[in-house]
């Protein structure tokens, strides 16, 4: 079964054609990679899938629900979470608070019981804090729960963003360069996390430049170049694809 169906998506900014007729499917429970050179339109695509941008034309379906032209908050409500290439945490919140803020869709947190100091409110908050700590532990940040997000290291911030995205138990997770700037050990931990999330049935679409990460983790990969899909296929197929080599890995290779 396909979770996500991207059908003939185009998007232009002014005169610049960022995406042109992009189509591919992401199967349920898969880890799907999206690669391509800088400026190929990968982030634009993620922005469209998460409702941050509307496509100029084309359609996207998530579990047979139309997702194009749906605003970001409703996309999230459909169970789609994302991270950002340029990391958009809530900088002056602590790690724990970032994850707690992420529970917007799943935690009712009603005002009235809080005003009345009903025990249910305290219970909910304690449960949420515990749950959030659990999520932090999953990305290895439980020891830093009271640190401000802006004071974390680069890799820690990336992991915190994943934790925040996980907080409302999404079924589709869009990761934009999740291991960029990470050390190898750190990246390996993230790879394990992604694998276990997929094992739990979550569908994951990720953009990454680190080829070993992508090739090891993804069952299918879509390659973009100049806003067009070059190919979609298994890591092996992509590895051997003539055009991919030229477009993405090309110039460096030629000189070598």
């Amino acid at each position, binding site marked *: 079964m396909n979770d996500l169906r991207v059908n003939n998506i185009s998007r232009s900014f002014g005169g610049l054609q960022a995406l042109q007729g992009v189509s591919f499917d992401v199967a349920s429970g898969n880890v799907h990679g999206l690669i391509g050179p800088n400026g190929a339109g990968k982030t634009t695509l993620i922005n469209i899938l998460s409702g941050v941008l509307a496509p100029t034309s084309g359609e996207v379906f998530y579990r047979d629900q139309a997702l194009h032209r749906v605003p*970001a908050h409703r*996309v999230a409500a459909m169970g789609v979470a994302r991270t950002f290439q340029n990391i958009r945490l809530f900088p002056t919140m602590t790690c724990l608070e970032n994850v707690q*803020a992420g529970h917007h869709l799943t935690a009712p947190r009603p005002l009235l019981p809080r005003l009345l100091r009903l025990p249910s409110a305290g219970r909910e908050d304690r449960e949420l804090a515990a749950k959030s700590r659990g999520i932090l532990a999953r990305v290895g940040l439980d020891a830093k729960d*009271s640190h*401000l997000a802006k004071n974390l290291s680069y890799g820690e911030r990336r992991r915190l963003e994943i934790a925040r995205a996980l907080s409302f138990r999404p079924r589709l997770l869009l990761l934009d360069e999740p291991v960029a700037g990470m050390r190898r050990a750190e990246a390996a931990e993230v790879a394990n996390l992604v694998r276990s999330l997929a094992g739990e049935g979550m569908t994951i679409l990720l953009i990454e430049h680190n080829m070993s990460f992508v090739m090891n983790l993804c069952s299918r990969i879509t390659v973009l170049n100049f806003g067009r899909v070059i190919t979609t296929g298994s890591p092996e197929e992509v590895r051997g694809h003539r055009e991919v080599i030229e477009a993405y890995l090309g110039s460096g290779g030629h000189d070598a």
Partner: protein
Amino acid sequence: MLEQLAQFYAVYGSVINFIGINALLALSLNVTLAAGMLSLGNAAFAGLGGYAAGILTIYFKLPYVVSLCGGALVAGIVGLVLGLPVLRLRGVFLAMATLAFGEVVRIAAVNLDITGGAEGLTGIPNVTKTWIIYLTLAGTAYFMAVLRSSKLGWALVSMREDETAAACLGIHVTYYKVVAFTIGAMIAGLAGGMYAHLNYLITPRDFGFFIAVDLLIYNIVGGTRIWYGPILGAALITALPEILRGVGVTAGPIRMGVNGLILLLVILFLPNGLASIFARVRPAAAKAETA
């Protein structure tokens, strides 16, 4: 001692009352500031609330509490209607749009008959008591403090931090902005109603541009990030002329200059406002990271 306290209240009662009302107004602005929106319309909302409450009392002979609620409701409804179009604006542009709205409200009050024109709406009974102001303030402050932990509060703070990221967590940004704006308008309207019933009179000039700016000053001076910040700011700025009078700074330009100087010093040397004197906002984390 009791006698002395009574004496103190006799002299400073009105200052104490105004501190309470200004603190309420500051909190009303804080609701929107908490979500990262700068509104200069809250003074106008207070004016709307004040006029509405006054009119309800004078013309409709409604009891005080009903008039107050009516004032808050009128301000809230106008806030809702205004919020829908203007809240897609950001930063200075939102400030200017709300400012223009405030001016239009003021000019309307000058030209309408029911508001009493420039002389203002007179004959409003003086029934607002200090305890009513402070009970309302305490309630509002409690509301603001608790709000922080509710769904709405989390959404507002998330939006202040990063609107796009907030939207991607399922937060309906426009909706929460309008809600915050409307709540702010209602609190301002409530404060305005109490003001009108404290002063016998409400005039268009009580809620002009400079008052709108004052509300911002209270917040920035006191600190916007914690519920008691705006209250501290309102208290300091409102009491400042009295404090200066008390320490013998003569009336007139000198007192005005010292007033400005203190404002400048606070903004330069207390970046997080007065509230940061009383509580480092996050002591644990701050220590942990420098260690």
